[in-house]
């Protein structure tokens, strides 16, 4: 045990560099997936056939490809097509696209859960599609969507570790590098696990808060 604390003190600063990148990747891809997910969801419920079919097939394609393959594609194949991305860019883009499919389905479920009478009331005072969305549907859908959104945040935090496969030196990769050069596997990976857990706990509490709030009214 004493050895662990000693190692921990040694490795902590290096691992903190990894934590910083983990947070950058998570927030970056969270924002991207939210924006893309909203776009897919809006296309899906637009009532315009071409758009909703396009969005549905896009979501299925994205859902059907493993994140790691998506990352390899962006990082290793895109340069052949003349688009060179840094590892960090590719990671954020890949995770953002991969998760946009889940976000879209979540947003769509929230939008479709709104009572049809609400939409009719909005129409009856002359609101068009976009105004109905912005003023009536989305503000009510947010409450429904937030708890699962929080869960997606937790999953994205953990899945940001997949960026290590394309050389982004986030927490998991930093840990692996230290472990393979010091052979102190137990100390290093215990520490890495604890650091992920520490970052997850606030998010878990946040989800609980969302759930409580969604239960009201």
């Amino acid at each position, binding site marked *: 045990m004493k050895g662990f604390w000693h190692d921990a003190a040694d490795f902590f600063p290096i691992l903190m560099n990894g934590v910083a990148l983990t947070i950058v990747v998570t927030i970056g891809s969270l924002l991207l997936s939210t924006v893309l997910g909203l776009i897919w969801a809006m296309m899906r419920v637009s009532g315009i056939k071409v758009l909703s079919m396009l969005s549905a097939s896009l979501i299925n394609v994205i859902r059907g490809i493993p994140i790691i393959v998506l990352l390899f594609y962006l990082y290793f194949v895109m340069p052949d097509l003349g688009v060179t991305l840094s590892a960090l860019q590719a990671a954020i883009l890949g995770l953002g696209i991969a998760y946009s499919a889940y976000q879209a389905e979540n947003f769509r479920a929230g939008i479709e859960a709104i009572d049809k009478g609400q939409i*009719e009331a909005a129409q009856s*005072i002359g609101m068009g599609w976009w105004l109905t969305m912005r003023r009536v549907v989305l503000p009510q859908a947010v409450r429904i969507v937030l708890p699962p959104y929080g869960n997606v945040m937790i999953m994205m935090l953990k899945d940001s570790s997949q960026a290590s496969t394309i050389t982004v030196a986030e927490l998991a990769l930093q840990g692996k590098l230290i472990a393979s050069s010091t052979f102190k596997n137990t100390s290093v990976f215990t520490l890495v696990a604890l650091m992920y857990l520490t970052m997850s706990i606030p998010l878990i509490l946040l989800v609980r808060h969302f759930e409580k709030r969604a239960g009201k009214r």
Partner: protein
Amino acid sequence: MIELKDVHKSFGRVEVLKGITASVQKGEVVCIIGPSGSGKSTILRCINGLESYDRGEIGIEGLKVDRDAPSIVNIRTQVSMVFQRFNLFPHRTALENVIEGPLFVKKEPRAQAFERGRALLARVGLAEKADVHPPQLSGGQQQRVAIARALAMQPKAILFDEPTSALDPELVGEVLNVMQRLASEGMTMVIVTHEIAFAREVADRLIFMRDGVVVEEGPARQVIDNPQEAATRAFLSHFHRTGALPPATTAS
């Protein structure tokens, strides 16, 4: 001002409107009665473009109602709707519900919309509930807010789709009272209702529908007191047709 000419409408293979021809004059109060499934509500929903219709024509002051045309927004700002289940926006206060249309659809100046909104809430007896959210209001109060919301659009006519059917009996009076006052002020109203005594008292004209057709129509008192068709007589026999309106217990 509202004209229906041979309007047909089917849901799948069920024909719910089998050629409806009717008209509503400016300032007139028309009640539509009939058993459930007779197509009463569908007519209102077609007039407001919430449903499409298959054949025939609906016109509002000469403008054709076509829910897929851009003109539908214009029509909806001129003809408001009050729903059976109120359909207030639960995330906004009573006052915000009322001014939502004026502010965001009609782009009315904020100060003016707020002032008018408060005045309208006062008119339906809910001045002190302006900042309360709908879930904290009783059904009768919610429906009165919904009427204020409809009035806020300064419509030429208001369509009422069974406005008291979702209410506890003791709350019906306060809503009917507001409607009666509107009628006496000359508002054009089309009301789908089961409140026969109210229809007799307030409506100028009554339309009795069954199975998607107009069976009988005429001056409200005449149709209710002396129905000509057997189907109308059979339907009306289920109701107390006369008597005072249910009292409006309180104004708030």
